[in-house]
């Protein structure tokens, strides 16, 4: 018996729970050279803004213990070039397409989302209210329940298909932000974006990033991400896409057990671009060994101590 890996989030069915994480696969073209994107549950694009952005000057990445910092600064081609140059490629891919949207103002989020509403092949939007690397917008929205609700509600009005709110871990209580996103009309949560961090070169006394700080990702953040998913799953009501340091199928199972319905693989793609393929295979084998027929049999099934 082949285990059933299909999951459904907000009425959208995914072939498996493994997605790419935004900012870690550009617009999919490079990864398509490594494996057919049909192997993914979904492809999540880089954040798209209204105007093209070059991002921050280099160095804008720095390796850390079991992970890395980045302050790319939302470098992207902008919505016009995205629709003209990237959508034709994405339309041909046999996987679900999730477009990540970012902005400096609520209007920008709404405007970009409205443009994407016209493109039927864009199955879902993921709203990045949690980027730690831009001066305006981003994290500023994700740290305020009121702004989160307003931002999501604005997008809700113009985008008829499901919306995922990508939440920041850099907050006092992530569930307050999650509830606000829910209130605004979100259909699911992506938990978590990167953690604010920095690193300093002791020879030059300079930060290792020109932005002075950046977002920490990679295996180093997995325990934090798991705890956040657990917290949101316990207190909030929407499905969760777990993100943070996932490199192997074993990591995925941990996220499923604490309540994630699906997961995103990010920094691991830099080390093993074909990681999602290996993860899906690993999940199947694990389920066979454990005699699990459906992936749903694991979601939220962690056996907590009481």
């Amino acid at each position, binding site marked *: 018996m082949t285990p059933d890996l299909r999951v459904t989030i907000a009425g959208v069915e995914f072939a498996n729970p493994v997605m790419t994480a935004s900012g870690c696969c550009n617009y999919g073209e*490079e990864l398509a050279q490594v494996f057919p994107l049909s192997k993914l549950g979904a492809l999540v694009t880089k954040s798209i803004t209204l105007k093209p952005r070059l*991002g921050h000057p280099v160095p804008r990445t720095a390796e850390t213990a079991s992970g890395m910092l980045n302050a*790319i600064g939302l470098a992207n081609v902008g919505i016009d070039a995205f629709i003209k140059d990237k959508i034709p490629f994405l339309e041909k891919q046999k996987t679900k397409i999730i477009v990540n949207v970012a902005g400096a103002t609520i209007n920008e989020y709404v405007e970009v989302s409205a443009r994407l509403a016209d493109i039927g092949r864009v199955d879902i939007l993921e709203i990045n209210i949690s980027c730690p690397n831009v001066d305006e917008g981003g994290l500023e929205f994700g740290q305020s329940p009121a702004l989160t609700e307003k931002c999501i509600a604005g997008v809700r009005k113009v985008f008829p298909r499901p919306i995922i709110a990508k939440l920041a871990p850099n907050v006092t209580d992530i569930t307050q932000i999650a509830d606000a996103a829910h209130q605004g009309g979100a259909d699911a949560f992506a938990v978590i974006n990167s953690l604010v961090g920095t690193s300093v070169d002791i020879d030059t006394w300079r930060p290792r990033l020109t932005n002075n700080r950046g977002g920490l990702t990679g295996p180093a953040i997995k325990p934090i991400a798991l705890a956040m998913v657990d917290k949101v799953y316990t207190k909030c009501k929407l499905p969760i896409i777990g993100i943070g340091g996932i490199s192997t199928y074993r990591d995925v199972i941990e996220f499923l057990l604490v309540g994630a319905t699906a997961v995103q693989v990010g*920094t691991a793609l*830099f*080390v093993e*671009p074909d990681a999602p393929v290996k993860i899906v295979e690993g999940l199947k084998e694990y389920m066979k060994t454990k005699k699990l027929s459906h992936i749903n049999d694991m979601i939220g099934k962690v056996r907590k101590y009481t």
Partner: protein
Amino acid sequence: MTKPSCEDTTLVRARDLHHGYFSFTFAPYPRVAECHPGSFVHVQLTSTDIYLRRAMSVASVNTRRHELEIIFKVFGRGTAALSRFTTGSKVNILGPLGVGFSKPRSTYHPVLVAGGVGFPPLMFLAQQMIDDGMDPKNIHFFYGGRSERDLVERARIKKMGIRFYPATDDGSLGDKGLVTKSVEKFIKDHHAKERLRLYGCGPEPMLKAVDELGMQYGVAGQISLESPMPCGIGICLGCVVKLRVGGHARVCCEGPVFEIGEVVL
């Protein structure tokens, strides 16, 4: 674009070139035939807690024996960890990556300018030019470093029969001073500048000087840039450089080799 793949291979030869330099040969690496001078591979440091791969330019290939050689210098904890790998270690290599040097016409007189650990891809380029039928006497290899001991693998380079011009900051070998000063004199004195082609690989100040020489004397050519590269395949956007025209380029994908005058250095 060559489709990159992750391949398990074995470290079959590890040579300590002294002064922090190492030559590692991996085999069998199934994609050697697709590695060109200027191409690089991304080496996974599996035996350590270091998460990201390390980009290493290809120093030589042996297509018959499926051998791939890299030469590196220990700079940080990644290269230090790599240097501790022993013969027989299993190593995963992502590659081949990047756009390498374009082949010069046989009538050209290539001027290769290597700085320190930038020499391996140029050694590979010189070898390929000879294999393609170029007269070794028309290949000019400038090799600069702080002192004599930084210029490793000299015997091997000289053995190719090419013209070899060492330069050291302390004058312990060859011209005293920056290698680009020697290159400038060579270009100035050369009777047929239109036949010259510059190829540079080394530290950024040296590349900047090569770039400027090319533009100043109207000598076309290419330089190979170095940059920390988390992914190596164009998805992290961490290694961008500014182009004179047209925004950013990724060193890993559009490079690492760029035309002289193309990049803002």
